[in-house]
């Protein structure tokens, strides 16, 4: 619950952080990741994203977005597209 002093990060801020994390994990230039849209495929679409890289991605999201990701949170829908991952990160940031 927001008390007016401790606002959740804005959608734009989460979007920017998430793109930076993906650029670090995938080893892609910022410009390439800037071109990702909601339908851009991630896990299962990008060879750079194997299970170990996804584990690193989730851990970076936890550290940089200050959220906790549980086993049950991780599913195909959340990881399949950039839009799915962003929606998940936003929902978690509001909870946090």
């Amino acid at each position, binding site marked *: 619950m927001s008390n007016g002093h401790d606002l959740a990060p804005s959608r734009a801020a989460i979007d920017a952080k998430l793109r930076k994390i993906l650029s670090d994990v995938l080893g892609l230039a910022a410009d390439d990741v800037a071109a990702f849209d909601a339908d851009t495929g991630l896990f299962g679409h990008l060879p750079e994203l194997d299970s*170990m*890289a996804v584990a690193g*991605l989730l851990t970076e999201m936890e550290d940089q977005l200050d959220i906790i990701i549980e086993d049950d949170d991780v599913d195909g829908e959340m990881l399949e597209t950039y839009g799915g991952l962003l929606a998940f990160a936003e929902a978690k940031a509001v909870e946090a």
Partner: protein
Amino acid sequence: MTPFTLVNWPCRAVGCGNDHSEMALTFDRGRTIRLLVIPALFDEANKLRRQTINVMRRLDLAGVDTFAPDLPGCNESAASLPQQTLAIWRDATADASRHFKATHTLTVRASAILAPDGLPGWAWAPTGGRQALRGMIRARTIAAKEAGRPEKTEDIQTLGRSEGVELAGWRIGATMFRDLETANPADHLIEIPQSDLGGPGLWLRAEPDEDASQAESLAAILSIALELNP
């Protein structure tokens, strides 16, 4: 540039026997500053090997001797990985430090938990044993879910503590698993955060990678620090 040399060093760590040796990759020209480089652990060992050696090459040019020992159970070691414990690995790094007459150490990521007592040095992007396990356990739960036979983190942890467990292809014994859960980076080291190197951590990538400018930055930071604290 000096070519590196692969040498044997006597590893007398408890449990390794009296006649055990391990290998080390070294740049040794008998110089005054001698840096023991303790490689990253488990899956990050593979991902950071190339970058670590690239940093050693640059330190060689800067006049620093460096030594990267294999830990028992890793690489070409004759020791069995699942039988390793943190105590054995700490003994082994202390042995390597004595053998190579190290004056300083550089740890890489979770190897900060293995830094020999009393050996001053730096921890590159240090992390603890629990965090090292967390990443590998998470990779296992994601792969298991993808394969249609989901596993829970708690179940993997219970198995790890009681019988040991294979994570990211590394067979980790029960004692080692329990040791890692509470192992923190040595507090006498000076931290070099990844953000000081001007680029993302290469351990995040799916495959081993290299970054010349990050290697330059790390070697420069160390060279300056070593000149100030010879």
